[in-house]
């Protein structure tokens, strides 16, 4: 190839480049000069905006699929920092319309400044008249958006509030956590099932990509990615049993829990005083929140799993198990109960200071003779008491699928030395044997303990949620956590324990709660409180020969377990087994 031909071809190549650049120049002229006004308008006025569409949170339903928590549409008012041109005028106006502090609006505006094209929610669940007032002031509020968003609806108000939990606005720390997937302003589960199962419930937010006009109103929707609703969480709760438990507990401070002794599925879960999660559904106003926090009765505490109490005689299940397994007693062992017990010159009186006279060990369980249990505890010793208590799962968390569970306390000499710096006295053993002193047990732990007696020694893992289904109803996962261990109980021991617990109801302390057609077994407890009246306990199960349900009731500072807790368990069992109450429940318990 000669030089001339090469030069020619170079000229052709450069001409091609020239033509291509001319094409670009012409196209730029077309886009920027000819159509410039059009695109300029699109850019200035008809902004394309991507708004996220909050996914409806998954439903929470009871075991029969009845919705306990759903969603309802509500108005959300948000502001778009980018179009918020005159904050001095707009902030006071919108704050007044929404009934919030101007400082709060200013704070939210400042927080969202680095993402000025994303709307910031100011208030959820805005009443219709307020929305109308905003629409009327639309000309003065170009940066304000009104959206319809689902708001959480707790259908039965405060029903099972501690188990279900509540929502709250995601914290800055949560948003910043890598891969959290949370957006600022989003509501997430803060407690209970709402928190523990948040990742199932939250769903997948959608997107609307729309052109909006100068007023900030969407003028044309270009694309919509629908939000994917969260999954449905199926609870083990039975609405009827739950309502019965709450009604039976009434206004008293305490807790009721009902559980399947074979599986650990929670069927009722009540803690009083309670709160209404609907208050939180749209972001709780600060005054309401601080009122809840300051309430001396601590309504936010879940008394089923988050508070430990002395159990009183319910603990005798542990003492009896240890004594029977260690061969200290048999069911037929005979005792004499004079109504008091002497230890080193000190006299311990039984609750009522009454003498039960001669009685077998089974009957000692039935009448809850402290003297008999004090007697045997001396042979069993504190280490063995603590060992059996721990085998029954006391002193450690049950592993329930709810946040914030407490472990309670099971003392032993080493514990006392470590924590209190004191030696263990023989009197401590007597106290422990009857569930007093340093013993602290949650109602949930008590339920699991008696469930172990009912099911032959297995320590089930309690759980509130049995299943997660897609919003279309397809089962996605089933929850059946494995047992957390067990108690080694011989057949004889089990037989004596069950005979004793059955006798409690047939002829013992809780004879008043018999249910026609349903054999109930259980144990009362009346635990002395450092303040006020004793804690009343009843932990029971039914049917006595083939247990299907364990129920534990605990009432703070009420009095005798048989009198204040027993009837609650009775009501719950009646509801669960579909038995009409023999007589209308007494309005006020007898003194």
């Amino acid at each position, binding site marked *: *190839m*000669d030089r001339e*031909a090469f030069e020619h071809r170079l000229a052709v190549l450069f001409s091609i480049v020239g033509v291509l650049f001319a094409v670009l120049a012409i196209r730029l002229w077309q886009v*920027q000069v000819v159509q410039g006004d059009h695109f*300029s308008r*699109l850019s200035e006025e008809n*902004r394309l905006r991507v708004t996220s569409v909050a996914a409806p949170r998954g439903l929470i339903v009871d075991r029969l699929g009845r919705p306990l928590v759903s969603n309802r549409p509500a108005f959300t008012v948000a502001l778009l920092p980018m179009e918020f041109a005159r904050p001095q005028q707009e902030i006071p106006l919108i704050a007044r319309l929404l009934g919030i502090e101007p400082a709060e609006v200013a704070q939210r505006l400042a927080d969202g400044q680095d993402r000025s094209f994303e709307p910031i929610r100011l208030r959820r669940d805005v009443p219709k008249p307020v929305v109308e007032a905003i629409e009327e002031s639309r000309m003065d509020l170009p940066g304000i958006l009104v959206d319809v968003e689902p708001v959480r609806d707790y259908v039965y108000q405060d029903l099972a509030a501690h188990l279900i939990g509540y929502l709250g606005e995601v914290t800055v720390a949560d948003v910043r956590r890598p891969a959290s997937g949370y957006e600022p302003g989003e509501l997430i589960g803060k407690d209970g099932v709402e928190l523990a199962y948040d990742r199932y419930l939250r769903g997948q937010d959608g997107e609307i990509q729309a052109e909006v006009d100068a007023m900030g109103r969407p003028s044309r929707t270009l694309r919509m990615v629908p939000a994917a609703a969260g999954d449905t969480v199926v609870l083990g709760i039975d609405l009827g049993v739950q309502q019965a438990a709450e009604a039976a507990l009434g206004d008293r401070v305490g807790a009721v829990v009902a559980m399947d002794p074979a599986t650990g599925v929670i069927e009722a879960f009540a803690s009083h005083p309670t709160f209404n999660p609907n208050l939180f559904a749209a972001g709780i106003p600060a005054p309401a929140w601080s009122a809840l926090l300051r309430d001396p009765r601590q309504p936010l505490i879940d008394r089923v799993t988050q508070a430990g109490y002395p159990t009183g005689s319910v603990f005798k299940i542990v003492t009896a198990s240890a004594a029977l397994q260690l061969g200290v007693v048999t069911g037929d062992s005979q005792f004499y109960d004079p109504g008091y017990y002497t230890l080193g010159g000190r006299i311990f009186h039984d609750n009522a200071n009454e003498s039960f006279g001669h009685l077998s060990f089974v009957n000692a369980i039935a009448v809850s003779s402290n003297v008999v249990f004090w007697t045997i505890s001396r042979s069993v010793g504190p280490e063995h008491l603590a060992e059996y208590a721990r085998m029954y799962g006391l002193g450690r968390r049950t592993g329930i699928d709810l946040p914030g569970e407490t472990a309670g306390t099971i003392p032993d000499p080493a514990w006392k030395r470590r924590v209190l710096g004191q030696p263990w006295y023989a009197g401590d053993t007597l106290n422990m044997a009857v569930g007093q002193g340093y013993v602290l047990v949650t109602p949930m732990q008590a339920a699991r303990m008696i469930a172990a007696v009912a099911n032959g020694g297995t320590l089930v893992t309690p759980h509130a949620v049995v299943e997660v289904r897609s919003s279309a109803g397809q089962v996605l996962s089933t929850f059946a956590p494995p047992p957390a261990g067990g108690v080694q109980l011989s057949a004889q021991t089990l037989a004596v324990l069950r005979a004793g617990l059955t006798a409690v109801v047939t002829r013992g302390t809780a004879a008043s709660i018999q249910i026609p057609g349903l054999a109930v077994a259980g144990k009362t407890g009346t635990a002395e409180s450092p303040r006020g009246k004793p804690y009343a306990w009843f932990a029971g199960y039914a049917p006595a020969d083939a247990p299907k349900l364990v129920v534990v009731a605990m009432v703070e500072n009420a009095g005798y377990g048989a009198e204040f807790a027993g009837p609650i368990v009775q009501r719950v069992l009646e509801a669960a087994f579909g038995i009409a109450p023999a007589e209308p429940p007494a309005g006020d318990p007898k003194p």
Partner: protein
Amino acid sequence: MSAVGTAAAANPVSTPRSRTWRLIRNLDWTLVGATAILVAAGLVMVYSTTRSGAHPFAFVQNQLLHLAAGVLVGAALIAVDYRSIAAASRWLYVVNLVMLAAVLVVGRTALGAQRWIPLGPLGQFQPSEFAKLVIVITLAKHLADRPGPYRSLSDLLPFLGHVAVPMFLIFRQPDLGTALVYCAIFAGMLYAGGARRRDLAALGAGALVLGPVLWHVLKEYQRRRLLVFLDPSLDPLGSGYGLIQSKIAVGSGMMWGKGLFVGTQNVLQFVPEHHTDFIFSVVGEELGFLGALLLLGLFLVWLWRGIATASSARDRFGALAAVGIVSMVAFHVFVNVGMTVGIMPITGIPLPFISFGGSALMTMLWATALLLNIGMRRQKILF
């Protein structure tokens, strides 16, 4: 550009010192100037597109780091006689293939494609960018070693094979845009190298026939981009979103632009990849039609100097390498700018010297260095 006499004729007593002076005198200062202005404009635009956020200078600093490395290595590339670079062609070709294969094995995935090799604190390294320049050098050497005349299509097949192997590896990443850059380099160099028009046309026709086959090799997102290019209304806010937003940004710049650093489409992050592939849409928005023309004019000056370098090169290797570099840059500019104004499909090709991206910037600087090297050592062409 008139050819300057040989060193021997100008200065019979040739000393290393006088040779260095002659070389510096021969340096194409117009090309140096155009490059410097383009790079400076690039830094300003990268700052403009990445300044929002906690570290407004983070991207610019990164770009400056690569600029420094590019200039240092570029200076070394100028100092060495380009003929010794040509002599290393075989090694370059092999190393290039190894690196491209390495990307497929250890590469980092981004936007559905494996293009980067992570290099720890040094950032990421994108071999397909350097591969473009390497292929220019090795193909030029190949064409110089096999000068023709090319009397039939089969005479071109060795060159086709030469380009096809690395191109296949890049296609596998998959990086459609870079693979197309290879086509442009190949066509430009073979045309300038003396291939018959009808043979090149036959190869083009063959590529078209191969198209439907390649369609199945493309990743889903690439097919979608191509389809959306043909009909943006297919998906106004999916793949078409970038296209429409880019056009809105460019168009809203109008004649004079909104002014540097005051573009809104950019800050609002409407335009995707606005600091890399779509940086021209910000140029259009902030500097307007006149600014965009000015930038295109700079590129045209740069390309003119490239053609002039080819024209005055002392040998066939130098001339064809210069043509390859011109083809590469011209194709980049046309496809990239065309993409932002909706006349080219979205293929992920950066705007030379302007787009954020260290590997691309260094490659372009080294390509410039090679052009300067060839131009500096010009003599009568010995074909």
